[in-house]
């Protein structure tokens, strides 16, 4: 196998808040391969967005801090880089798009000004060359009459069109990695479908690696190759997309999948909700942070934090059950619904 393009190891990020120290990311590790689409799934506060902001060096400091860890992009550690070096990575080697295209573009500058800014900064293009390039990019993301649209301001575009502009901007320097942070959450379903189609298509044509951050398992199933599931600042499961949905290993993943109402299935009377709520990040209990909501928690889950370990080739999970499964045969957590008590 080729060496990964990006290799994140034991990343820790914390924030100083009024309520105390929040350890938003607590030892996240993952690899991103060339041309791969990696989904990072989690609920709000799971640390999925912070992880990516940390890679870009965009954690506001203070109150944020990267306490530990490394993130090697083709061998060079992003975490150790100076702000100056990071400036050459951002927009050039890693492009980023955000959740709300309504607010992510500068309302006071034309779309053309915002698009040309990137290529002029990184490629040193002349105004005219940058303009041509910007028009090409708009055309590529499916915006018609690109030359004239360059003179328009963001408020003259619809939400879906603005997200296309964001994608054009993020890809205009042909970065190796595109980080998409909830790129379709603010959009309507039919527009979401268009944007996901566009991302998938661009990915196939250009071979860009994508990190797709989302809370929507449906989106993940549609376009990702591999998935990380995060909970309370940690990765609890990592698997290929087919494996994850076919046989989730971690009780949290399983719970998430069960609690989803689905369009393609007859609805049973009740959803199997995960009881309780995610821990208060200022007071994360010791041990496994999902313990309080876990239907199959063991005594040792309270004391020892289960590490993320490989449970099969290319697949890992952070649960003591995986440890106990083979030798002791403790209550397994098969995808069969019976052992899980309803919410």
């Amino acid at each position, binding site marked *: 196998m080729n060496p990964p393009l990006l290799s994140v190891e034991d990343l820790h990020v914390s924030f100083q808040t009024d309520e105390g120290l929040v350890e938003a990311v607590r030892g996240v590790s993952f690899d991103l391969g060339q041309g791969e689409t990696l989904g990072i799934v989690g609920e709000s506060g799971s640390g999925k967005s912070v992880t990516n902001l940390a890679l*870009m060096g*965009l954690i506001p400091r203070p109150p944020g801090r990267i306490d530990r860890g490394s993130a090697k992009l083709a061998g060079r550690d992003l975490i150790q880089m100076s702000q100056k070096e990071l400036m050459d990575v951002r*927009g050039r080697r890693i492009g980023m798009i*955000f959740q709300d295209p309504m607010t992510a573009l*500068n*309302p*006071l500058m034309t779309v053309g000004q915002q698009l040309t800014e990137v290529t002029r*900064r*990184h490629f040193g293009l002349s105004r005219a060359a940058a303009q041509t390039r910007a028009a090409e990019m708009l055309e590529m993301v499916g915006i018609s009459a690109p030359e004239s649209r360059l003179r328009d301001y963001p408020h003259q575009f619809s939400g879906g069109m603005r997200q296309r502009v*964001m994608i054009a901007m993020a890809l205009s320097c042909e970065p190796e990695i595109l980080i998409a942070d909830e790129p379709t959450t603010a959009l309507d379903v039919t527009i979401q479908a268009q944007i996901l189609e566009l991302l998938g298509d661009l990915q196939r044509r250009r071979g860009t690696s994508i990190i797709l951050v989302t809370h929507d398992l449906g989106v993940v199933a549609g376009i990702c190759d591999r998935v990380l599931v995060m909970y309370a600042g940690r990765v609890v499961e990592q698997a290929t997309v087919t494996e994850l949905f076919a046989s989730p290993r971690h009780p949290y993943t399983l719970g998430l999948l069960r609690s989803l109402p689905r369009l393609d299935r007859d609805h049973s009377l009740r959803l199997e909700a995960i009881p309780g709520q995610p821990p208060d990040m200022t007071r994360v209990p010791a041990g496994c942070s999902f313990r309080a909501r876990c239907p199959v928690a063991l005594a040792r889950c309270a004391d020892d934090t289960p590490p993320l370990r490989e449970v099969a080739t290319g697949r890992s999970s952070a649960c003591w059950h995986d440890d106990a499964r083979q030798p002791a045969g403790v209550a397994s957590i098969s995808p069969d619904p019976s052992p899980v008590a309803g919410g």
Partner: protein
Amino acid sequence: MRNLVGYLIRRVGWMLLTLWIVYTVSFVLMRSVPGNPFSSERTVPAAIERQLRARYNLDAPVHRQYFDIGWGIVSRGDLGWSLRLEDYSVNQVLAEGFPVSASLAIFGLVFAIGLGIPAGIISAVRRGSFADLSMMTAAVLGIAVPNFVLASIVILLFVFILPIFPAAGWGTLQQLVLPAFCLGAPVAAYIARLTRAGMLEVLTREHVRTAMAKGLSPQAVVLKHVLPGAMLPVVSYLGPATAGVLTGSLVLEKIFAIPGMGSHFINAALQRDYFLAMGMVLTYTVLLFVMNSIVDISYAVIDPRVKLQ
């Protein structure tokens, strides 16, 4: 562009209407207060007063006066004669005093903007630093201290203790520095605070993060993506600020012995100098309209979402 023309036509229409109202109100007010231009400490013989009244057309019935004066202004731009400054027409008084007051105001504003905006930017970017703290303390003082007190302090400092600038007078650039400083200081303080607040607000917006994610330098992000948005409240403030500076120069003109319009303003009202008072009020009305229109247009230039109404 068509937007702009329409806007200007509307503004001029409103201005004419306002001017007419201002004219009427001040005409009525001036004539309804007790006393007249000739009833001062020195009693004027009745015959002479009659003569004077006839000369200035003040013996005509009030409604005739109202129309005659109004017509004079509309047809010839003639604001009439000053009743107190012998042999000066109001137009002449304005032509002499106004440029002086206006240059003082402009210098004051330039100074206020030049000092206020950079101070606000630095304060916001280095929030919580010593520089931020000291500049914002200075800003609070600048707003709190009345400009005549400030004038006494700077005269003491820069005329007597460190004789760099002349104490008073008009005509050289040197003489302009101290009064312009005193005039601009409170405005600079406001601008600094508005800039700082605006910057801090825009800095939290998501598009600033997008700009960072594009790999722009922090300087480029601040200048291109943060500052324009942060300037919007400052621009709004500049309209009333200009008016304030123009009218507020009154006391400073006295202290620094500057031959501007300030002294006329009070005297004209106190001495019932009907025509001069009227002329000044109308001039300032026009000025305010012009300033506010400039503010509106700049606002629309900075923010494309704003439509000129």
